């Protein structure tokens, strides 16, 4: 299946790839602010800006997981 990954034997080495849908007005701004404040956090997250978290179609989430992302965060 497309995007299917090798099963990681050792869970301790497992680094999940997380997709984040961030609302432009709050969560995306918060992620910007985290940068301005130099808050350090793990680099597993990739963000997609949307104008409102309501834009996130449940299909997007299912497709992301199906495509191989390990987790999806919808924040807004």
């Amino acid at each position, binding site marked *: 299946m497309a995007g299917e990954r090798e099963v990681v034997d050792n869970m301790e080495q497992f680094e999940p790839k997380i997709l984040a849908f961030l609302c432009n007005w709050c969560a995306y701004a918060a*992620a910007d602010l985290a*940068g301005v404040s*130099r808050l*350090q956090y793990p680099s597993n997250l*990739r963000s997609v800006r949307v104008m409102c978290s309501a834009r996130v*179609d449940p299909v997007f989430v299912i497709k992301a997981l199906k*495509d191989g992302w390990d987790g999806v965060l919808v924040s807004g």
Partner: protein
Amino acid sequence: MDERKAAYIEYAQAVPLAFAIDPDTCIGCGLCEAMCLAKAINYDDTERRTTLSVGALILSPGSQGFDPSGLELLGYGRFSNVVTSEEFERILSASGPYRGHLMRPLDREGPRRIAWIQCVGSRDVNLCGNGYCSSVCCMYAIKEAMIAKEHSHGELDCTVFNIDMRTFGKDYEKYYQRAKDKSGVRFVKSRIHTIDEVRETGDLSIEYVDEGGELKRETFNMVVLSVGLRIPDSLLDLARRLGVEVNKYKFAATHPFSPVSTSRPGIFVSGVFQGPKDIPTSVTEASAAACAAATVLAEARGRDAKSIEMPVEIDVAEEEPRIGVFVCNCGINIGGVVDVPAVAEYAATLPNVVFTDQNLFTCSQDTQDKIKEVIKEKNLNRVVVASCSPRTHEQMFQETLQACGLNKYLFEMANIRNHNSWVHGNDPETATNKAKDLVRMAVARANLLKPLKEKRIPINRRGLVIGGGIAGMNAALGLADQGFEAVIVEKEAQLGGLARELTTTIEGEDIQAYLYELIEKVNQHKMIQVLTESLIVGFTGFKGNFTTEILVGPRMYERKIQHGVVIVATGANEYKPKEYLYGQDPRVMTQIELGKRLEVKGASDLKRVVMIQCVGSRNEENPNCSRVCCQSAVKNALHIKELNPDAEVYILYRDIRTYGLLEDYFTEARRKGVAFFRYHVDNPPVVESAREGVIVTFKDHLLQRDLQVPADLLALSSGMVPEDTEELASILKLPRNEEGYFIEAHVKLRPVDLANEGIFLCGTAHSPKLISETISQALAAASRATTFLSQPEIVLSAVTANVDQDRCAACLICVRACPYDVPRVNEKGASEIDEALCHGCGICAAECPAKAIQLNWYEDEQVLSKVEALLEGVL
């Protein structure tokens, strides 16, 4: 409280967020100039004199916090754990010296008990000469106590020592009650004069007399001095040079009916230099000063403005994507962590990328010029910038595209700074990989972007003002004097509103004379139309293009008015008391009725007058403070004393709230023998009718016993209630609070805007306020409205939802989902979304089961392309 480096940023939210050099700390080594990659430092820069020719001047120089070093008995500067409120703000701040951890300066221990001492440098004629109230300290002390409790790791006891708690602003009283009842902040009525240090512990000992007259002593770990606002001497010099008069406290002298005009025509004032005030009022006043200045400059509007010529848009819709990727180093902000050359090199391998480059600062003017050249030279039809946040820089880069004739929606950003290099600074390798991922996602979306057309709609330059009181008339004049037509809709037969009932201001200015003049001005203004006995029955449209249906006159002729903005100035009324025998005994009246009575009958027949404060305010039914009643009582008391010095006046109060410069009148009233007695809300005065007078019984706290006073007249300081606007609010879809006052878009940042675009608010429809404050707010609303009306047209964002009418099944899911009520099912039985009303959130696109709705720029495949782009990378 902390050492500042020679190169510093003023504070975390400073605009522009750029470094400056502090000449007091700089040793002059010049290293920064040599090191700066952007060559942004001009080390030899000196002060320059510039001459500007202007038509009006606005003074907003602000104020300084009072320095309590001179008040030796408070121990500031001698005892480490006595700090000013400004220093305490820094202690609580995440960017402050203790990084937001609540600690006291002496030993960096977390305090368990903190005391706030109010009125340091305010309401004090004896020690510092500042007889005025600084207006802001009560609120900030409560706020500091609340935040301190949040920041404290253990239990924290907060005590605020005050003379009166002056929480007179909109909803401030509710905040005060919440601090007291929910957060457990303790409020003690006592003025503190002396603070002693406990040597061994660094704690502070405070001796005070409580309300019952008992001497008490308490120990605190830390004391915060709530310092007032003062005008620095340097401003006196400025005022002198400008020929602007100041009052005895060094605030700019203004007239109650022209609150933002200084003594010199063409020079206006806003903020604390006008008088002590908080942020919402300062922001409002700033807009008011802008309105006053714009009125003077009305003829010259736009004369010196330069417009940018945009080239004709190139049609690239049919072309294959040719993408240029510009990767930014952002000085060392990105380049210091991410391997930028590697990212640029990687970008070049992505589909349809025909050009890549890396820049030191992609946002700088020279890079913009370079990008423009490259766009033309390489025939780029999509641009990706990998740098900072689209929230701050997208618009700027889009303008660069437009300057080359490219549609602004053919642009995408990858945020490799805020979301990457800044947050993974310790891990350059993964940060570089993440930057590549983000660029790949951006390029994937760029491949699918389409040019979008923004709708331009002309603006109807007429303003509709609802309410013809002092607020509405001033707002209409604010529009009309700047050359915009105004229509006032008044439901009564005459203009004037509540002001028709008023006599004089506390300063002694004749309100009726002012009102007469104001009505004349409005009636004679050729740009103002007045509709009296008029009722709004319908309202449609959007900002710039509203249509309002009005029934006019006793015969209710229907009229439709088209206009671009609305100013809501529906006003308020005096509360008609149910308490204290009002309406049963003719000797019981409200302050407004007393004001009129004094005007007509004088006070020679009055031997004794009692006044009761907070009638219809600060109670369960109306938890707000009505703001104006304390000064009304003091005004009428002074008037009685002036007419009949032998008359006794008793004022029974809870807190006297003569804020700002009104405090002088309170002081004068006490000097003239007006007696003030505090009563508790749970033990209010008792009023009985008797032949010899109205008998008022209340408890005197100093004597600790009940006093009984027979009065010739009992005046009730009755609060304000907003005009009944339930129907209007539902027609215009405007939000109101529980008490019926309209809710502004943002208390501090947008104090006269309503959340509904193109609709503004002023006067007592917002909250109770004085005439001078009403005039300021009316001018502010007019200013906000004209800022919008002065544009020739509005450009609507193209990020809106589109319905594919053939696929729509009219299931109504979008109609129900839309938070703005935009989708409508049209006569063809399909959903239709008005792009002028659509906010572009995309909820309809997500909900539509038939996938008949797409959100421009965030189409399904454009969003999903980013999701899918991961696959192409190395997992």
